[in-house]
C-alpha cells in the first residue's frame, strides 16, 4: 500500500488561537478554523512524514482514539483541505520551494 504525504500550501496564512488553528487561503480568501485534532495533523504536515505516521504519533497517542478511526478521519480531513487548496497531497515526499 502506498503512503500519503501532506504539506501545508505556501499560499496560506495560519496562526493558532485558543488551541485551534486559523487558516486563510490568500488565493480565494477562504477561511477555516481547525479543531484540536485537525490542528495536530496540520502542524505535522511537513511533506516528509507519511500520514500514517502522523496519525499514529500525533493523533492516536494524544487523543486516545483507535488507529482505524483516526486514519479514516484523517483521510477525510486531508481530502477536504486538499480540495480547498490549503494542503498539498502526494504519494511521495513533498519538497516545497521555500521563501528565499
Amino acid at each position, binding site marked *: 500500500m502506498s503512503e500519503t504525504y501532506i504539506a501545508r500550501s505556501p499560499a496560506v*496564512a495560519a*496562526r493558532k*488561537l485558543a488551541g485551534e488553528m486559523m487558516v486563510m487561503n*490568500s*488565493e480565494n*480568501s477562504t*477561511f*477555516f478554523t481547525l479543531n484540536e485534532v485537525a490542528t495536530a495533523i496540520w502542524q505535522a504536515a511537513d511533506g516528509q512524514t507519511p500520514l500514517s505516521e502522523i496519525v499514529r504519533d500525533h493523533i492516536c497517542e494524544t487523543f486516545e482514539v483507535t488507529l482505524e478511526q483516526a486514519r479514516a478521519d484523517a483521510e477525510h480531513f486531508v481530502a477536504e483541505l486538499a480540495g480547498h487548496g490549503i494542503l498539498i497531497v502526494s504519494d511521495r515526499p513533498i519538497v516545497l520551494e521555500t521563501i*528565499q
Partner: protein
Amino acid sequence: MSLMGEVGQTAFNLGVPLAVHLDITYRCNERCVHCYLDHDDHGEMTTAEIKGVLDQLAEAGVFFLTFSGGEVFLRRDFFELVEHARRLMFNVKIKTNAVMIGEKEAKRLRALNIDTMQISLYSHRAEVHDAITKLPHSFERTVKAIKFLHDQGLRVTIANVLMTANLGDHYGTQKLAAELGVHYTLDPTITPMMDGDMGVLELRIPGKELEEVFRNPALVGNQEEFCAPPPLPSAEDLEGYSCSAGHSFCYISPYGDVFPCVQFPLPTGNVRQQKFLDIWNFSPQMNEVRSIQARDLTTCSSCSHVASCTRCPGLAYMEGNMRGPSTADCEKSFYRTGVATANMLRLGLEKPVSAGRGGQLIQIQAAV
C-alpha cells in the same frame, strides 16, 4: 455571526492581538495635501529590529499584519521584510501609493501570496490626483501598477480619501475602480498633522456633504437600514466596548512605539526597550484603554447613539478625554440618522460643530 466574526470575538475576549498595523517608514515619495505625517526619518527600526518584532508578533498570536507607512517601497529591505513575514505565516496586507510597483514587483508580490494590496487613489482625473499627491504623473503610475497587480491575480482595493480637493470625484473614482476590476473604499477622515498643526483640517468635507455620502446606496448598501434612527440602548449595550483598539488590535510606528491604534496616539511602550507582549499585557495605558465600557463614557453613555456610533476613543483622546465624545463621530451619527447626539444636546446645538479634528475611519465598502 460569521466564522471570522467568531474568531475576532474570541481574540477580543482573550486579549489576543489578532491584528497589527506596522508602519515601517514615514518617508514618502508623495506629498499629499491631507497627510498628517512628518516624512523625515527620525531613526527607523533596522531590518534586524523589524524582523525581531515580527518574530515576537507571531509568537503573540498576531494573524493579520498590515505593512504601511509612509511609502513602504522606499525601504530597500521591504521585500526582505515581507518575505520574513510570510515565512512566519502572517496574513499580509500592504498599503501603498504603488508608484514604485512595476510588473516585476507585482509578480514578486503575487509569489509571496499577499492577501490584499490597498492603494491610495484620490480621483479618476489625473490632474486632481496629481494635485493632491504633488507628484507629477503619479496618477498614471498608480493606475498602471493597479493593472499589473490585478493582472497577477492579486486582490486590490482602491482607497479614496474624501476631501474638499476631490469632493466631486468620488463617483468617478468608484467607476474607475469597477472598470479596473478592483474593490473600492471611501474614507472621509482627515487627521491633524503629527506636530499638532490643524491647518490640514480645512480639507475636511462639510457635514452637509457627509449626509449626501451616507444616503448613497452605492456606497452604504441598504440606505434605509444604514440611516435608521438608533434603537434604544439596552443594558447589554452599556457593557460594550468602543472598538478593537487595545483589545485585539494595535499599531507600531517605524520607531518602535506601540499605540492602541493608528489614530490613538497614546504611547504605551517601545519595542526597542521592552518585549512586545510585556507592553501588550502589562502597559498601564493599554490596560486603561481596554477597561473602558460604554457605561463609563462621559456624555456618550446617555446618548441614544451609544450602541451604533462609530465613536473613536483615539479621536476622543485627541480631543482631551478618551472617555469623552469624539465630535467628528457625533457629526457622523447626526448626519447619518438626523437624530441629535447627547453631546449636541448638552451643548444646546441644533447641528454639530466640527471639533477641528479628524474622524474615526468609516470604511464604506463597495463591492466590485
